[in-house]
Every structure is written in structure tokens, then in C-alpha cells.
């Protein structure tokens, strides 16, 4: 299916949750969705006939200023089509449903997004830091992050 067809398919089943479809030359075509419906939409993407996105290539998070963005790159081995799903959550309440139950790859990807950007994935079975020490404070890849003076008595910079 082309990205346009995938968008129309999703629009039929998740009418209000699917916000817009963007196909511009400088990026991969992507679909913007409501954060609360991420799990249901991904479930459709994985299981609906004709879509069958069985491979999550990447899950990444970005700091957009006022909002935090989460980006899902999906691929279907059977049909060899790709789609990008994007969602945005407010910085003060960054809750996104976890898709770890759909793709096991998302387990560590979501933990990394939580560790460095601070997006909290609801329903993840083990939402703890993956790269930084467990007692680290803050999420370093946020634009407004201030590095601490010391860590365990070692000077940071």
C-alpha cells in the first residue's frame, strides 16, 4: 500500500484520532495521531489485513520546545511498505501508551526515550532508565537540561 492508502485505511477505523497526513519531499510521508490512541492505531497497523507492519524499525523521541514528540518507524516484511507515525505530548504531562506488547523491540527503545527525553510510556512493564545510572536526575537530551555540577563527588564539567 502507498502511504496515502494506509492513511485512508486508518482514517476509516480511527476517525478522530488520526489527525493529518503529510507527504512532503524532504521527509518520509508520516501520519500524525492523537497520543491517547497510539496503542489502538499501532494495533491496527500490525494486525489489519493488507497492512501487517510486523517490524518496528525505530522508536525515537524529540524535544519540540513546548511539546515532546514520539516517532514510530514501521515496516512490513510481507508487503515491503513503510510508514512513519508521529505524536506529540505536552512537556508537563508526557504520557504515551506503550507499544511494547505489540513489538518487543519497543521495550528498550521506549526505555531509551524515557531515559534521555523523559517521555513516560504507560503500560510498559519495566519503565526504568537504560543508559544512564539509575540515580541520575533529569533527562539530558531535553533542550532546557542543565547538567549537574557533580556526580558522586566527581566534577561534571
Amino acid at each position, binding site marked *: 500500500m502507498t502511504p496515502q492508502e494506509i492513511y485512508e485505511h486508518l482514517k476509516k477505523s480511527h476517525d478522530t484520532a488520526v489527525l493529518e497526513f503529510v507527504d512532503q519531499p524532504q521527509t518520509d510521508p508520516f501520519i500524525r495521531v492523537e497520543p491517547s490512541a497510539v496503542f489502538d492505531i499501532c494495533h491496527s497497523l500490525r494486525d489489519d489485513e493488507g497492512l501487517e507492519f510486523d517490524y518496528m524499525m525505530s522508536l525515537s523521541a524529540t524535544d519540540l520546545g513546548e511539546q515532546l514528540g514520539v516517532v514510530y518507524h514501521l515496516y512490513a516484511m510481507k508487503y515491503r511498505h513503510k510508514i512513519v507515525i508521529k505524536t506529540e505530548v505536552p512537556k508537563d504531562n508526557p504520557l504515551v501508551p506503550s507499544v511494547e506488547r505489540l513489538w518487543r523491540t519497543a521495550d528498550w527503545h521506549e526505555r531509551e526515550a524515557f531515559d534521555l527525553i523523559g517521555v513516560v510510556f504507560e503500560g510498559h512493564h519495566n519503565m526504568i532508565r537504560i543508559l544512564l*545510572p539509575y540515580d541520575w536526575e533529569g533527562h*539530558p537530551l531535553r533542550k532546557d*537540561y542543565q547538567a*549537574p555540577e557533580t556526580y*558522586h563527588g*566527581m566534577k561534571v*564539567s
Partner: protein
Amino acid sequence: MGLLNKLDDPYEGGGIVLGKVEELLNWGRSKSDWYLHFGLACCAIEFMAMNASHFDFMRFGTIPRTSPRQADFIMVTGTVTFKMADRIKILYEQMAEPKYVISVGSCSNSGGPYWEHGYHVLKGIDLIIPVDVYIPGCPPRPEAFEEGMIQLQKKISQQAIFNKRKKLGIE
């Protein structure tokens, strides 16, 4: 070195070596250094080349150990993050005296490319453990490893074992 040359000495030859016990011990110590390799980044990849047959690191008498308790020196090769810094401290404390440290590459010498803006990288391992030899480079060539090893051997062979306090002028 100094000890073996005495075997050729016409006055002190004939299978008898006259020298200090300290010299003998230091000769033995400097020529059989077992090391704990703490490989963290690309310097460790370069160190693999150093260990392979072309450069043959073991000709210096070194044997890699997997336990700090059996090691004479620790070789820290690569970027030391704060998470790892805690672990290096623990490993160093587990090593038996006398112990030495070789810091390999810009990252463990001074933080390397992260020296100013890296929130997660220790700015040189000499901030947490005492370093004996610094090997510069990013990563260093095997020749630099050789030079570093020679410098460490030189340092060990010149160390005092007996009457340390006297020599240091403490007594």
C-alpha cells in the same frame, strides 16, 4: 637489563652476579606485568591490534587477566562515563599492591572530545585514580602502546622496595 649485563662483565662473570636484591626484584616485576584490560571504546579496538601477532604485546611479559585481584596494572582504554567511573574505582580498589594504572587515549586522559560539553563523561581518570603512564592519541597507534609499556617498565624498575621511607626522606 642492568642485571643481565653483569653476566658479561669480565670481573664479575663466571655465573656469579653481584647486585642488589632490590634490582633483581624490580627486574622480575617490570618484566612480568599482568594486566587487567578495561576496554571501553575504540582504543580497545586498537589494543586488539597491539595484542595480535604483528605487534605482540605479550613480548613485554604481559598476560591479560580477567580478575583485578591477579593484575599488576589496569589499562583503561576508552571513554569513561560516570556510570563506568564508579566501577573503575571499585576494580582499582580490588587490585593488590603494588598496582599501576595506564590511561590510554584522549578520552581517559582528559575527556577527549567530551572535555567541555559531555554531561556523562569523566574528564580524565586521574580525577578518580592515580595514573602512572598516559598514552596520548585518539586512538593511539600500537607503537604508542609499546612506548607506554616501556615507560611503565622503566618506572617499575627504578622503584624502591626497601627503606622506602628513608629514601623519601621521611625518617
